[in-house]
């Protein structure tokens, strides 16, 4: 027969095998065996194809073949179950072919740190494929990792949007961002946008672009029609990049990368609180990476700053969990930087002050929240209606204007939130025992001294702040989870307030400080960004950290009008000034005017999940920064 219908095992092969097993075979025997082997192979292949058909597959697997063998009482062949193709190689000298079988280092495998992620959970998703028998052209819902071909319309949309967001025209950008966060039909584009956003690494020299990309993240996250799924991870890593990396843009001290970090931190917490459930262990991972940065002394201060604001944004528990235990070790490094008065150190020292400030704000809230949670649990809170009564109380008790009422409660009382945190952080993560409040305070006091004390005690009543309360409240409510607006309008207050008020009367009467300054901030800052940066470049601020705290405040308790004015300015955020310089000049404001966001409220309102609501309020918590 000339033509071979089947793969055949030659008699030589059979003989070789036999030799390998120590048996000598005659030619005729080998030939017979070879033929029989071929036949048996064909038979097994035929019956294995049955298993393939019933498994509703097109690909015959090793497993199918083994089943066929097993059912015909032949031992299964192990070791070929790998998913990837087995390379079949030849040895040059001598016609020998073999399947490459590399040794696996078991020890290495066992001790490997990069434990492979388990594959995602099997799930069922439904989508309407055809309505009334007609094709539903817009893809509904996405199949993760599916490469979809985009319709022309979608492609055009994608191009327009990216061009608008990354382009020059700020107005166009706003429109684009708005659409991005409300368009219900862009699910298919999600991977593309995520891909664009993951480009943060390539534009780390361009603050403006980074900002825009972060805004894009925010819009995507806020879009109620998008199911982010596993893309959350990618988004988070882009955001984390902006928070933690020593961006190329930060080499120039003129660049206000601090604002970007703050913004990104808020964004991070927003993503986490709204979409954290999509990826298991996300909270944990975020905390771990923040902790890693914080405990790495080689990292530049701006990275540390990012870690601190990131922790702060994730909530006081995160601060308690990660920042507080690291503080003693970290403090030594920071102290060294701050105590170095040499000129060459000026820049670094300024950065050090930023970190110092950030830590201060973080621990301050930690103390407050902890105290609050203790007192609340002691009170055995009424629970049911946290917003009104207790809220008001807590609001009083706490620093004014710093944290809007619902927040602390929600953290303490809302099951979901606290559960999330506990579950996420998990005590098993690292041995960690909560430090009792007094001990914590003592320790913190040893670092921060009076500044802490003053701040901490500010909360208790003052007559002055009553007018501000509603506005603050309204403010925080109105503010959509849009971190930007929150951030910009309210972020800088506390620092100013603290410093301002303390300075004149060092004895720190609590009465002095509060709400007015909080309002003053935006107003004064809004003046101009340019002046500010000038100031900064002048290096005025770089002087002495402690001194700065006592400089006399320029902004005296201002009025609401300022705030409003500030908002209406509608200027883009120019970034946050080092707080010591702020006294000298009116800090610039930034801010995407809240009203741009105001009309997004309905959308958010509709979503109305507790988590979301909580997030909104949580945001305002960050305002102190």
């Amino acid at each position, binding site marked *: 027969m000339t033509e071979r*219908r089947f793969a055949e095992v030659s008699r030589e092969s059979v003989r070789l095998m036999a030799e390998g097993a120590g048996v000598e075979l005659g030619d005729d025997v080998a030939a017979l065996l070879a*033929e029989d082997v*071929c036949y048996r192979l064909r038979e097994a292949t035929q019956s294995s194809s049955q298993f393939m058909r019933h498994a*509703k597959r097109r690909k015959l697997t090793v497993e199918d073949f083994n089943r066929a063998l097993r059912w015909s009482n032949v031992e299964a062949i192990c070791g070929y179950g790998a998913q990837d193709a087995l390379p079949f190689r030849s040895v040059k000298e001598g016609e020998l072919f073999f399947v490459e079988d590399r040794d696996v280092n078991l020890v290495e495998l066992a001790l490997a740190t990069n434990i492979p992620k388990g594959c995602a959970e099997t*799930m069922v998703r439904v989508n309407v494929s055809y*309505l*009334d*028998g007609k*094709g539903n052209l817009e893809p509904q819902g996405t199949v993760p990792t599916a490469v*979809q071909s985009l319709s022309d319309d979608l492609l055009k949309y994608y191009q327009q949007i990216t061009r608008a967001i990354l382009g020059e025209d700020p107005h166009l950008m706003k429109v684009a961002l708005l659409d991005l966060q409300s368009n219900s039909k862009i699910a298919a584009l999600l991977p593309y946008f995520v891909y664009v956003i993951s480009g943060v690494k390539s534009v780390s020299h361009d603050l403006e672009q980074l900002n825009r990309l972060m805004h894009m993240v925010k819009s995507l996250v806020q879009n109620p029609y998008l199911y982010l799924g596993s893309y959350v991870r990618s988004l988070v890593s882009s955001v984390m990049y902006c928070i933690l990396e020593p961006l190329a843009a930060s080499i120039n001290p003129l660049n206000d990368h601090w604002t970007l970090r703050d913004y990104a931190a808020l964004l991070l917490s927003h993503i986490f609180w709204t979409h954290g459930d999509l990826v298991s262990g996300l909270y944990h991972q975020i905390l771990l990476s923040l902790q890693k940065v914080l405990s790495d002394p080689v990292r530049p201060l701006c990275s540390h700053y990012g870690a601190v604001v990131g922790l702060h944004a994730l909530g006081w528990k995160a601060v308690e969990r990660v920042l507080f235990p690291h503080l003693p070790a970290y403090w030594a490094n920071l102290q060294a930087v701050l105590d170095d008065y040499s000129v060459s150190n000026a820049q670094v020292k300024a950065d050090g002050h930023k970190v110092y400030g950030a830590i201060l704000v973080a621990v301050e809230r930690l103390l407050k929240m902890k105290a609050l949670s203790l007192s609340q649990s002691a009170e055995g809170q009424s629970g049911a209606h946290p917003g009104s009564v207790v809220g008001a109380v807590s609001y009083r008790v706490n620093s004014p204007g710093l944290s809007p009422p619902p927040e602390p409660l929600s953290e303490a009382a809302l099951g979901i939130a606290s559960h999330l945190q506990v579950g996420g952080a998990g005590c098993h993560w690292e041995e960690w025992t909560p430090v009792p409040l007094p001990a914590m305070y003592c320790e913190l006091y040893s670092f921060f001294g009076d500044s802490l004390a003053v701040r901490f005690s500010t909360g208790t009543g003052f007559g002055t702040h009553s007018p501000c309360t509603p506005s603050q409240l309204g403010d925080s409510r109105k503010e959509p989870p849009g971190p930007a607006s929150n951030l910009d309008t309210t972020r800088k207050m506390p620092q100013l307030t603290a410093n301002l008020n303390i300075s004149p009367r060092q004895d720190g009467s609590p009465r002095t400080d509060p709400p007015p300054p909080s309002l003053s901030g935006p107003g004064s800052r809004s003046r101009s960004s340019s002046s500010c940066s000038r100031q900064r470049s002048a290096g005025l601020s770089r002087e002495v950290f402690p001194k700065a705290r006592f400089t006399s405040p320029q902004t005296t308790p201002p009025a609401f009008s300022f705030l409003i004015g500030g908002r209406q300015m509608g200027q883009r955020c120019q970034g946050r000034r080092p707080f010591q310089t702020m006294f000298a000049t009116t800090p610039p404001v930034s801010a995407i005017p809240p009203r741009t966001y105001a009309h997004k409220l309905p959308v958010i309102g509709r979503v109305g999940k507790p988590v979301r609501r909580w997030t909104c309020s949580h945001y305002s918590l960050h305002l102190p920064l």
Partner: protein
Amino acid sequence: MIALTGKNQSYVLVLYGLCFPLIHVAHAQFILKMAAVQGGMGDADIKTDIKTEPSADGFGNNNANDGRVLSASPGSSSSTGSNKQTAAVTPEDQQTLLAVLQFLKKNKLSESVEILRREAGLPENSLDPKANESAGAGSGGAAGIVDLEGGDASSLLSRVTGSSSAGAQAPTKGTVQSGCCPAVAEDQPDVSVVLSAYSQQGDPTLYKVYYRDLKKFIETVLDCHRAELSQVFYPLFVHMYLELVYNNHESEAKAFFEKFSGDQECYYEEDLRILSGLTKKEHMRGNETLLDFRTSKFVLRISRDSYQLLKRHLQERQNNQIWNIIQEHLYIDIFDGMPRSKSQIDAMSGSLAGEAKREANKTKVYYGLLKEPEIELPLDDEDEEAENEEGKPKKKKPKKDSVGSKSKKQDPNAPSQNRIPLPELKDSDKLDKIMYMKEATKRIRLGPDNLPSVCFYTFLNAYQGLTAVDLTDDSSLIAGGFADSTVRVWSVTPKKLRKVKSAADLNLIDKESDDVLERIMDEKTASESKIMYGHSGPVYGISFSPDRNYLLSSSEDGTVRLWSLLTFTCLVAYKGHNYPVWDTQFSPYGYYFVSGGHDRVARLWATDHYQPLRIFSGHLADITCTRFHPNSNYVATGSSDRTIRLWDVLSGNCVRIFTGHKGPIHSLAFSPNGKFLASGATDGRVLLWDIGHGLMVGELKGHTDTIYSLRFSRDGEILASGSMDNTVRLWDAMKAFDDLETDDFTAATGHIHLQDNSQELLLGTYTTKSTPVIHLHFTRRNLLLAAGAFNP
């Protein structure tokens, strides 16, 4: 071991695995029926179980168990089995008896031998060596009640010469089924005996000549006969080839194959490939396909004229070789009238054993629907849109209350209400019925101009391999069987899945309260999906019970498992198949279910019996899919022998054999009115069958790959088919069935004229995103749901 019962002069011979104690004889495992002697038994039943080991096997159809569960069966089965030949021990029977004696003796069961011999009145010396010969042959046949007409190979009654009797003979002997599915070779019977028929020697070199001669003859006959006579080629070719192989003429066999394999019809390609791999006598042993081919008679339908031509030719040429094969291995079903055309023949051929005999499809089938119990439908017209889970029938068309009125009058074609005992309706079932009726009033009437919306349930991250899917009738739950042996259930409504509380907690519940059913559920266990572990092999078949309390799964591990959807645990593992179970399905009324698998038998079970109530044996290859008729009185099975059989649940008889598919059948669907059956196979074609007439009534071409799923819309207007080729296609079932006018002639002869109107009937093709469609389901409002695993 042997049990002999004297009543009715019948000999029930029960062969057990030698391990089985005598006491259990009453629970006959293997009933080896002696020809047709046994009274009260439709002798079409084949009791033996092909490959299953003798022990742990299920009951035969007529064992004591039947009476308990299917109480109706004894009476009626005795009537169906009213055989003309009763007591007399015919020569064939004697042969068989001898074979049995032989067997017993071989196994040293001398006592039993004695008893049997005494009972049968056989002479002492009946087991002498001389008798052995014929007994041997007989036992081969007896294993499956092979050949009622000729007990042994040597005394073959020529079907040819007895052609006129072929029609007359078969019915009287009730061979309808046994003739074409005799091959039930018990536990590797004497293969040598089965194959020994090939030992007749001829000059191997002449085979080619013979075949070529015949070929030349057939090519020269009149056109009208040529197509018919060409049918002979394939079986002849195969048998001649096997004969050559069997007699060790390897090179001649190869040459023969080379020369003539190209002439065979393309749809035998698969079989030819298997054949061509087989070149040694040794390989013939244990090759199932061969055994099938060898032991079953290939059935051909040929008109009398054509047949006479062939016969004359062969006799003139003294072509005994071929003549012998025809006599021995072919069953020629001769009909009077016009020869069939090529297309007519092609439509019906393709199965492993030729066409079905006409007689096989003559039995009356009660395909009508059972009368629905009358349930007061509370007439609250406020359309609670609350139960709007299944989506939104946007266009509600006020419909005549067809559902209600239909059930009023009894369908003349329906079986009697209690033909098989059905479980009584529980209160919850009645509630569900009411729900169903309410939904039904909101049903969309589908048609060519009003196609259903399609929702696709995509299984994501199903890396372990999704092998089976089922949805509950109310579309509230979806279950998946996976290759990693797990069964997973998802709730596709906002209502989460909850387990029942533990026994201790249940004690604390106020049992009198109205919402006790709600209280027994453990809220803590609420989740969107549940995983159930228990199988030890891929889960190939899965089916929800109609009341949604149970789930069945069948697996490669040879078991069918019943799961509770209240506790999400396994309740029963039904063992019996012992080989992969490819499919299982609950009866539409619950309680009963059917399973079929690699052991080529389908079994009917009741959930509260750990052994099957019926064993449907007859397919020549794996049973790949099983479906219940809507009236629960019949079961359809599709097989990789490329035939579909319809079985009567009551008697266990095969009442229909449908041939025409050219590949293993992987999906079946009954039309909602019970009149029609649709089948889909690996050949990518959907075939439509008229159950009452036993005819093929349509062929739907369009799919390019295996059809894994078929479903009729709720009112039967639309047939949806889902395939491996990632498409769902909708067909105009109404039109396909309306155009039928089955004249008497067609009904009588089974000659069908199919028009090729697939394109007109195809209403739509819907593609998925790289997701093979393995399940389809119409919701009660006629929204089409499809399911499959995303397959990047």
